[in-house]
């Protein structure tokens, strides 16, 4: 397909893709291949990186293996990022689709609802939700999904509003197609490109949100995560800067690679560039 071809010619996007692929592999197989718990005390505390070949990245304030923490953290970051984005899409797409397709008071009502969620400072809302419902993977994922669906709804609504008056949609109406068919088979497939691009950027934002929450101590106490590692090392940054530095770098790399990929997707899927018209 020519989208994949265009994307594969975009070097920057490909760098993003490969870095991301590596992180995905680590998330999937790392905990199986790397023998070691992120919670167990294995060495003296504050072991600097590259001194002990068994614990390549050293140990933290409690003598726990940093590399193990990093590997387990990859899994949770990507998982929370993906799942919360999926949930946000599941809320945002139908809402935006209904508002945009039917217009009128349905639109008015749904958009006022969306507007409230968009006004509330999202990070603060996420904090409040996680704090009230006790920190856990579930509450964190739901909180992130709850604060990140409004842009999806607005985007989908905009797409549906402009596509619903396209002549091929009118033709489908004249064919006697049902609303469901028109939404699912005529409009949605043609509005997927911007949704895909937005989704890839949302995963990045979700990963940042998750790490910020864990940094504030709102992470799942059962699970090792990058944000938690930085938060725990915050007070000892003068003695052991690498304890904050390494997980931060992992977050930045993941988010950056997602953004690069999203950017590349945007260019590949941009209707202005891809052959919407002949020639």
């Amino acid at each position, binding site marked *: 397909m020519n989208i994949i071809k265009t994307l594969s010619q975009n070097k920057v996007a490909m760098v993003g893709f490969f870095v991301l692929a590596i992180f995905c592999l680590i998330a999937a197989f790392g905990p199986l291949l790397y023998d070691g718990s992120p919670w167990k005390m294995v060495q003296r505390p504050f072991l600097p990186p590259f001194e002990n070949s068994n614990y390549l990245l050293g140990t933290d304030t409690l003598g726990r293996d940093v590399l193990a923490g990093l590997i387990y953290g990859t899994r949770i970051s990507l998982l929370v990022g993906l799942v919360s984005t999926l949930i946000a899409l599941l809320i945002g797409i139908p809402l935006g689709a209904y508002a945009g397709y039917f217009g009128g008071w349905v639109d008015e009502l749904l958009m006022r609802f969306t507007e409230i969620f968009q006004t509330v400072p999202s990070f603060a809302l996420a904090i409040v939700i996680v704090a009230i419902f006790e920190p856990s993977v579930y509450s964190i994922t739901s909180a992130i999904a709850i604060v990140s669906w409004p842009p999806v709804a607005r985007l989908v609504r905009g797409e549906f509003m402009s596509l619903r008056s*396209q*002549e*091929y949609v*009118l*033709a*489908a*109406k*004249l*064919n*006697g*197609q*049902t609303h469901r*068919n028109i939404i699912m088979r*005529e409009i949605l*497939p*043609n509005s997927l490109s911007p949704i895909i691009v937005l989704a890839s950027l949302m995963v990045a934002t979700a990963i940042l949100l998750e790490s910020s929450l864990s940094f504030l101590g709102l992470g799942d106490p059962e699970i090792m995560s990058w944000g938690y590692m930085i938060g725990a090392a915050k007070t000892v940054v003068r003695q052991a800067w690498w304890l904050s530095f390494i997980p931060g770098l992992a977050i930045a790399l993941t988010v950056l690679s997602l953004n690069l990929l999203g950017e590349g997707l945007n260019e590949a899927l941009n209707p202005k560039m891809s*052959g*919407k*018209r*002949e*020639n």
Partner: protein
Amino acid sequence: MKPLLQVEDLTIRLPKGGDREFAIQKVNYNLMPGEILCVVGESGSGKSMTANAIMGLLPKTIQVDAGTIIFDGVDLASLEERRARELRGNRISMIFQEPMTALNPLMRVADQIGEVFLIHTNMNAKQRDERALALLVDVGLPDPEKMMKAYPHQLSGGQRQRVMIAMALALEPAILIADEPTTALDVTTQAQILKLIKELQEKHNTAVMFITHDFGVVAEIADRVVVMEKGQMVEIGGSDDVLNNPQHEYTKKLIAAVPPLVAPHREALLEVTPVLTVNNLCKTYSTGGGWFSKARVVKAADDVTFTLHRGETLGLVGESGSGKSTVSRCVVRLLDSDSGEILIGEDAIQDLNTAELAPYRKRIQMVFQDPFASLNPRKTIGQIIADGPIAQGMEPAKALAKAAELLDLVELPRAALDRYPHEFSGGQRQRVGIARALAHDPEILVADEAISALDVSVQAQILDLLDTLKVRLNLAILFVVHDLRVAAQVCDRVIVMQKGKVVEMGVTKTVFEAPSHEYTKSLIDSIPGASWRSDLPDHIPQEGQPEKQPAMSSV
């Protein structure tokens, strides 16, 4: 007389991967002082390229390859940018096609005009305002003092184009380049703008390079004509010669495709029971209106009544905002009407819900305007045509077989079934749109500006196809159209609409030869080049051989 501007062997290269190597190749022509030179061509002919090269408006990826544009002893193609800027807007100026977007939306009219003086003269603010005001008076804008303070969005399209002209003529340039300046305007506004350009051109003895696709406009204003085809200049000559005695095959073909402004005699219809009856149809729109502001109410259809019979083409003509599209969309129930009756055969359909409406959907179908927007880009041609019958309960295999037959009917190869819309040209897509409408075996076909997005030679082919199908399938066609030349050729009867009201209805020949309503008269008078090609009954497009379609654009 010495030419003002000499274009010599001008060649402009397109970036790699385009559909051809050169945008224009070895173009030669002169512009004489005080003349109006029309550059004519279809879309993609490269007719605007020279003008853009003169004004330094070529995109960065496109460059002049060879040749010169001599103005005042200097070559504009190789002139350094700083000196070229001094000429632009000063000695040579330009107006554009889209008046709605050609003005800066955040700047007052006075400031946009004043800017020209600010750049090229030493006038102070007061002098600039005085001159701007004088220019607004010159271009005939009402209440010029108020206009000075207005923002573009407060002006109509015609008024904006007048502001553009005022701006272009501010420093009395030697050359005015007009790139399709009336294409986006209604026919009566177009007539006024053409008249204004001609008047001002005569008053100031300006040379005008007028770029257009419309031979009617050429007949109206041109002194000389250049015809472009695919980047090549194929013909140049005096306006009378080119229009009435074209030499090149392409010019002949283009001119033959322009419908003559005369309604041929048509046999009266025998059938008396109408297949579509519209009684007292009303539809109002209200826009705006919030908590504090009153809504603006527009009557898009006001007490519209007409009938349509099988085997008949009924034209619905009018300018934008006349309500002709609203009526056509109410008739097919894409829009709900406020009051009145719509009867298909003898059954009223205006109040039916989706389920009740289903059987009537088959009987009335629509062909749309934009061939690029009317086909779902993610479906194959086969799916697009077969979808309707399948939705109405036909077996998919049978529907596909029918789609193949329909492709024969609209003269497209059956191989098109598995291809996607982007592989086809505009005319071919419009054929697919017609096939889709015919898939239901309808009695009534509503053609909503079905040819206005197409080039003139393709228009003729589609009109021809519609006419053949009408006879063969005994269709009733409601033809919504703004182009009166087309209406004169294809319609048995016409309805003229203005501001939602039917102002005149009758047999086409009668309406065109003896219009009874003032508005109809002004519409017909506004048709550009009305006196040209008004007496060629032997040349109606139906008789020309339908162009053989190229098998497919690319495989």
